[in-house]
């Protein structure tokens, strides 16, 4: 299926990417090519087939409900690009 530049812009917003004009152009072509290739899946009859989400289908795995030490705050913040020793700092969340 052909993918339009508008599709690519929409998906970039969903994926939280900001693409340059050049990237939008090349991705429109490349994604179209790849999706056209992938479209061959449509010819497979899967009417009575259950989707397979995992390679080895597992039963539920439960962890004991006990309190354990978590990552100390200092370590949790150590890799953050911006923090005040208490919390992560982010730009304003609500629009102005």
């Amino acid at each position, binding site marked *: 299926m052909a993918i339009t530049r508008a599709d690519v812009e929409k*998906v970039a917003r969903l*994926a939280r990417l900001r693409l340059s004009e050049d990237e939008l152009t090349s991705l429109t072509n490349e994604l179209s090519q790849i999706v056209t290739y992938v479209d061959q899946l449509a010819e497979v009859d899967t009417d009575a087939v259950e*989707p397979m989400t995992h390679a080895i289908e597992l039963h539920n795995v439960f962890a004991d409900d006990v309190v354990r030490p978590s990552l100390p705050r200092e370590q949790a913040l150590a890799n953050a690009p911006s923090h005040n020793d208490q919390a992560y700092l982010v730009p304003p969340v609500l629009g102005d």
Partner: protein
Amino acid sequence: MSLTEQSATELLQLLNQGEISSVELTQSYLDQIEAKDSQIGAFLRIDAKAALARAADIDTRRQSGKPLGKLAGLPVAVKDVLCDTETKTTCASRMLENFRPPYDSTVVAKLKAADAVLIGRTNMDEFAMGGSTENSAFQITRNPWDLERAPGGSSGGAAACVAGGMAPLSIGTDTGGSIRQPAGLCGVVGLKPTYGRVSRYGLVAFASSLDQVGPLANTTEDAALLLETIAGHDPLDSTSLDVPVPEYTATINRPLEGLRIGVVREHFATGLDPEVESAVRDAIKVYESLGATVKEISLPHSKYAVATYYVIAPSEASSNLARYDGVHFGHRHSQLSVPDPTSNSLVEMYRCSRSEGFGPEVKRRIMLGAYALSAGYYDAYYLKALKVRRLIRQDFDTAFEQVDLIASPVTAEPAFKIGQLADDPLSMYLVDLYTVSANLAGLPGVSLPCGFSSSGLPIGLQLQAKPLAEETLLRGAHMYQKATDWQSRKLDQLK
């Protein structure tokens, strides 16, 4: 024979007999890295001082008769995708250029507990996405057999360091062939275990239902040694399998009686290089001469494997990589100006941070996955691919009722030139033709050398087995290695 030309199994014997020290051995490999890696570029980081200090500590403990781990004193290289508190974990991405993990991955913890000497961190395609290691944000890795050619990927550094004699053992990861394909193109042994055989805890996620950690080495015995060290159930990874791990090295020398080898009709279709085809067919004849029976089988849905994979893997990737938001860790866009006035500044910070931190292939896969999962396309792509995935698995289940191992090429051609496929994503994806099915079906697979092209490039043989049949896989691979001498052919041009 110099130390670095011997197998890890032989080196471990020499260490245990006190013939060599770990410091001496580690220094030999550091010397090889010093001499060769400026050309090959297999390693992203080496900490010689730390490696030698660790080796010295192991030597002291060995001399005083203290109990030692399974790999005591052997250098092991680790792909830069497994968390280790003692070094950065970058995934060869600008996004994680300065990331210091707060905990060890289970595989790294097991290597440390086994007294391995972690000698360095190997290069890879960014976030393990790619088949040539050209997608690393930091450097290109060259194939030790021909420096104009790619080592394959994504574990290209992991394969090249073993092929180049710069590490006896190496850890890679395989989501669609990323251990087996570079092993094949670099002429070493690489094994992808059954999904769940090795813990993924602390492995930076690409596609969680497909990712698996595994060994690369010079011989099947060495791969068995490394696999039994890292395998096993882990309560920290709920997808790891709670089944005992056999001692693979104890049985590897026992040939398989009545071995049935499957040859897949669809694997020898058009597009397969004639030299690769003849090397693989010769390998199958070797098995016949060893008493195996060969049976032609069919995997009718295998032709859809690449298409299925390139829906499922990018979908999981787009979801997994959503965590890189420039807030908790990783790259953040430095200016908070708002290029898009319709968007709030937090969202704009996410978008700019991610676009700066990720390279082109990672962006492509995130986009592909986000597209396949988006409203209106979910059923047609993602759900459809999950159904075809089951059909691919059912083909294997049927095949393994008739045969013990499936023999095939690893790739359709020997190593390609650096840059050859770089501008053609779809052609690069099609390189995974023979390897992706094992990930979709969760099977173990191994790649081992089975010949050389007329231009002197290694050719790989892939063997696949049913889930948890690594013992059969390794014994079968070892039978072939004992009967042939491909693995002993050494690199001349780099000496």
